[in-house]
């Protein structure tokens, strides 16, 4: 265990090999002359073209099941699971998209899911990035053993401890409420681990310099580290949001009242004892993907923004 802890510590780039900040902290202007530039541009254009082609093929391969999902959402229930598979509905049942709002309280379920996902994501990102700073940039005894505890629990399948956990929650009077789920999922080890690994890539010299400037540790976290870790924050937020949004077992066990149900539970309510309304399930699935897409489109901007701002700032 202790060995492992030391290894983890060693995971940070040693101070010597860490990228030294460029004197002026700016990207160097291109030194190439005119002729070289145009050949480079031509080369870039060809590469771009190849990349577009590869991506287009890839996207098609990745979208096929989703296309089936959309197509199924426009069929009658008894036309979905046919042999052979039917890609284009023989008759487009657009009414599925209007019926679903009245068949189940879809709007309410969406609100519940959104509420849970937003709160859990915010708490996870906030507490996760705080704890990650403690685990990566502050040195104190017992730090790495504690961190190992965090990683260790990720390895235990939830199925193994969900009943002890439920009994505990029941005794605290927290079952059948959103609070139970928020408390369970907001403080997971995932966010701490992700953010810690990212902070490891940020050179310690930056913190050092900030300290010399007189910043407190909290100030360094808020003013130096957080702005630098936007890409990681965005990906943590996105992944937490998606996982919370798509979670089925957690809400299933902890939310009993129908008014607390999330979208995933609502969709499963179309599964009966002996058969299921697959067209409705697919309709609901298509609808429930839309918020995730919105979040992704907003969040993905930060993945690229990092490039310009990475490295050192003043």
């Amino acid at each position, binding site marked *: 265990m202790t060995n492992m802890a030391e290894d983890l510590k060693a995971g940070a780039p040693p101070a010597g090999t860490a990228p030294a900040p460029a004197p002026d902290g700016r990207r160097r202007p291109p030194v190439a002359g005119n002729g070289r530039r145009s050949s480079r541009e031509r080369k870039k254009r060809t590469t*771009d073209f190849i990349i577009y082609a590869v991506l287009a093929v890839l996207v098609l391969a990745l979208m096929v099941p989703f296309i089936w999902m959309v197509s199924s959402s426009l069929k009658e229930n008894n036309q979905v699971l046919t042999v*052979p598979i039917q890609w284009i509905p023989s008759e487009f049942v657009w009414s599925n998209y209007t019926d679903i709002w009245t068949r189940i309280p879809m709007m309410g379920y969406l609100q519940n899911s959104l509420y849970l996902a937003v709160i859990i994501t915010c708490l996870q990102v906030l507490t996760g990035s705080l704890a990650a700073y403690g685990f990566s940039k502050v040195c104190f005894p017992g730090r790495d053993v504690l961190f190992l505890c965090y990683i260790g629990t990720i*390895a235990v*399948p939830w199925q193994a401890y969900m*009943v002890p956990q439920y009994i505990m929650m029941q005794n605290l009077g927290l079952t059948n409420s959103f609070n139970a789920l928020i408390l369970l999922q907001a403080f997971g080890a995932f966010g701490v681990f992700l953010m810690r690994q990212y902070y490891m890539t940020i050179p310690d010299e930056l913190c050092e310099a900030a300290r010399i400037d*007189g*910043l407190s540790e909290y100030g360094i976290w808020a*003013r130096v580290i957080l702005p630098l870790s936007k890409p990681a924050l965005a990906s943590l937020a996105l992944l937490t949001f998606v996982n919370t949004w798509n979670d089925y077992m957690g809400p299933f066990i902890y939310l009993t009242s129908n008014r607390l149900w999330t979208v995933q539970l609502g969709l499963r309510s179309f599964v009966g004892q002996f058969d299921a309304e697959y067209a409705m399930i697919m309709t609901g699935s298509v609808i429930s993907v839309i918020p995730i897409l919105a979040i992704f489109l907003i969040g993905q901007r930060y*993945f690229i923004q990092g490039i310009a701002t990475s490295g050192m700032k003043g």
Partner: protein
Amino acid sequence: MTTKTITPAAAPAAAPAPGRGNRKQARRNTLIGWTFILPNFLGFLAFTLIPVLAAFALSFMEWTSFSAPKWVGLANFQRMLASDSFWVALRNTVVYAIGHVPLTMALALLLAMLLNRKLKGIGFFRVAIFFPYITSLVAVAVVWNMLFSPDNGPINQFLHTIGIANAPGWTSSSDWALPAVIITSVWRDMGYYMVLYLAGLQAIPAELYEAAEVDGASAWQRFWNVTIPSLRPTTFFVVVMLTVSSFKVFDLIVVMTNGGPGRATTVLSQLIYQEGIGEGKFGYSSAISLVLFLIVLTVTVLQFKIQQRRER
């Protein structure tokens, strides 16, 4: 940076220089460290760590969830080691992990490099690659099973045209069901890990690439000497998360093959679920999860050692 609350001399918290570190300093650091960790740790301790430890304790007991647990010592472990189903599930889980982890990692990194650039419409492509992860599992299972269909599925038809006469039976064959599941899960998960790599790539300062380019390094050399070393922390995270999630794989297998044909794709977490909440043998299922936990921990440590040795 407007108010100077701390004098520089009192501040160094990270990597205190040997000799200068005094007790007061250490206590200060501990205090600071804990204030950062505490908000998360309190929740983690109460709602994850304690139940996990309770589950581990249960592995030495017999418990039906209806009555008080009874101490049985190592009986659950003896039963487990003697059980055929346990070994089958363990083997399947290990094979799954061996297939799933490297493939997903390689493809996720490849995709992240491909998408880590400024191109028109790059946002759309990024979203598209994340799509498999958010597509309904039922749709994934139905469509992939159709692609894998032994007689008239597109995959086998393709294999026939390139001259493979004995195309595999995929999900309806004991030997090929696991590879089929691995392929599907790689396809599904690579977008997820791509997001993590994409964030990791952002942390690499552009100066490093520029310097390498000035030195005349080829694209391959830049990848090998700049990208890979700089991504080390991210890679460690991805490897650990992938290993853990491979050993815990559950949903996809349940929907795609439900462990079949026979027991060909039954995995440990399925066994834990069935034996535990399915049949009420919570002590036994906890014993399996303790073993699963130990395996994953060992693998994680090993992966780290290997990775480190290669770098030296």
